[in-house]
């Protein structure tokens, strides 16, 4: 029997902007080495929750623990190296694909060899010819792949992916899904994945959290999602609560 390890623990986490509650009293654990999908309608607080986890925002109440340590006590630069986030827009910095891949190392006053850059590029399914291509000339799907590779350069323990396929076509989406599965299977990478698409969550994830109006209304194995009893979750799964 294998013991399940916990990568992250959320304990009554809330986040307010002025008096408006964006995240409301969320608790739960994220299993290491698994893919956990975060689904829910727009404005449910999914992206905000990810930003709280790697402290691009600070939660106003509760505790988030990473490797048994309160994230607020870990230096933000160290925390963000260990909990990498791939942002929704596939933001590229000016320069080539290599410049983008070398960025995380540059930030640590280190360098990334071309061979190492190439291995990260191949890992995300892009060929060598892309290495010296201008980043701004890439397609949406290619940018997202480079974004993933760039985040992987830091070798994070946890990888957060914020709706990275939302603006991609079907072919690019499938390629990214394959990559995610591969990263999880081969490298046992812990992946937290935000998606609007329930079917995508079912295809990819071991566990699912359903967020609605800042509250977590379901968390558990994805294959038991259809057995959820919360009416708002049922409505969302049936496509009746997409607001």
């Amino acid at each position, binding site marked *: 029997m294998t013991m399940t390890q916990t990568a992250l623990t959320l304990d009554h986490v809330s986040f307010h*902007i002025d008096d408006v509650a964006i995240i409301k009293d969320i608790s739960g654990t994220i299993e290491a080495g698994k893919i956990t999908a975060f689904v829910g309608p727009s404005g449910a607080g999914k992206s905000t929750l990810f930003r709280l986890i790697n*402290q*691009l925002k600070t939660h106003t109440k509760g505790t988030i623990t990473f490797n048994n340590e309160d994230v607020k006590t870990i230096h933000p*630069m160290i925390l*963000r190296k260990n909990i*990498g986030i791939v942002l929704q827009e596939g933001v590229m*910095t000016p320069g080539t694909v290599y410049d983008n891949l070398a960025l995380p190392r540059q930030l*640590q006053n280190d360098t990334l060899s071309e061979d190492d850059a190439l291995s990260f590029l191949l890992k995300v399914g892009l060929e060598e010819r892309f290495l010296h291509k201008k980043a701004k000339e890439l397609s949406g799907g290619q940018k997202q792949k480079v974004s993933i590779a760039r985040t992987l350069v830091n070798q994070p323990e946890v990888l957060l992916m914020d709706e990275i396929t939302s603006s991609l076509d079907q072919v690019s989406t499938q390629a990214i899904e394959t990559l995610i599965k591969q990263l999880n299977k081969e490298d046992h990478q812990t992946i937290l994945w935000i998606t609007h698409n329930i079917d995508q969550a079912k295809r990819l994830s071991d566990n699912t959290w359903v967020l609605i109006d800042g509250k977590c209304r379901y968390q558990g194995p994805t294959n038991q999602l259809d057995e959820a009893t919360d009416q708002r979750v049922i409505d969302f799964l049936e496509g009746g609560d997409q607001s």
Partner: protein
Amino acid sequence: MTYFTLSLTLLFVLIPLLLAYYLKLGIEKDILVATARSVIQLLIVGYLLQFIFDQDSPIFMMLMVGLIIFAATHNARKKGINYKGITWKLILTYTTIELLTQAILIGLNITPATPQYVIPISGMVVGNAMVLSILFLNRLTSEVEDKQDEIELILSLGGSTKQAIHRQLLTSIKASTVPTIEKQKTMGLVQLPGMMSGQIIAGADPIQAVQFQLLILFILLTTAILTSIMLGFLSYPTLFTEQMQLKQTFK
């Protein structure tokens, strides 16, 4: 020039006023206010300078320089309300630039330490620094607003706040100093600088007027670069929280 002759120059105010009224531009009130303010402010400054020159006292001279720095700070701080402690950052920047400039000028015996030299040069130095800091703060604010994705990307990859804002800081420094450098390139070709024109009209030797103008141009170049660099490095930490997050004000 007599006061009667001076009053005739009001014709130059009457022309835009009539045109504005005729074309219904809605700026008549602004023209009148600007005219009244410039007359009153310049006359007060004129009498104040005459008084200070007559006293020939370093204390009055320093008070006048302090007043220039205060007025410049008061004007520029409105553009930097999002930057915590901007008033002190501006005062520190203007004072440093003023001290550095006067130390070089007086220390190397380029100009004497008399109110006739110190006050007008301080006015030009601090005035230019004020315009530069307004340009810089405007540009930095818009750069941060436009490029917040890029800034957050670098933070998310484990970068420091300085690394995250580096590109925007350099762009803002460059953009705010470009007008000073470009103006210097066309100096004498497109326009004769105000100070030089004033000296020539007052009967000074044109070569001597050019020498003084060159001195001022070189000082303004230093001022431009120093203002934006100093203000930039003093201001950027206030864009971030202690947890190295981009503040909500800029999002």
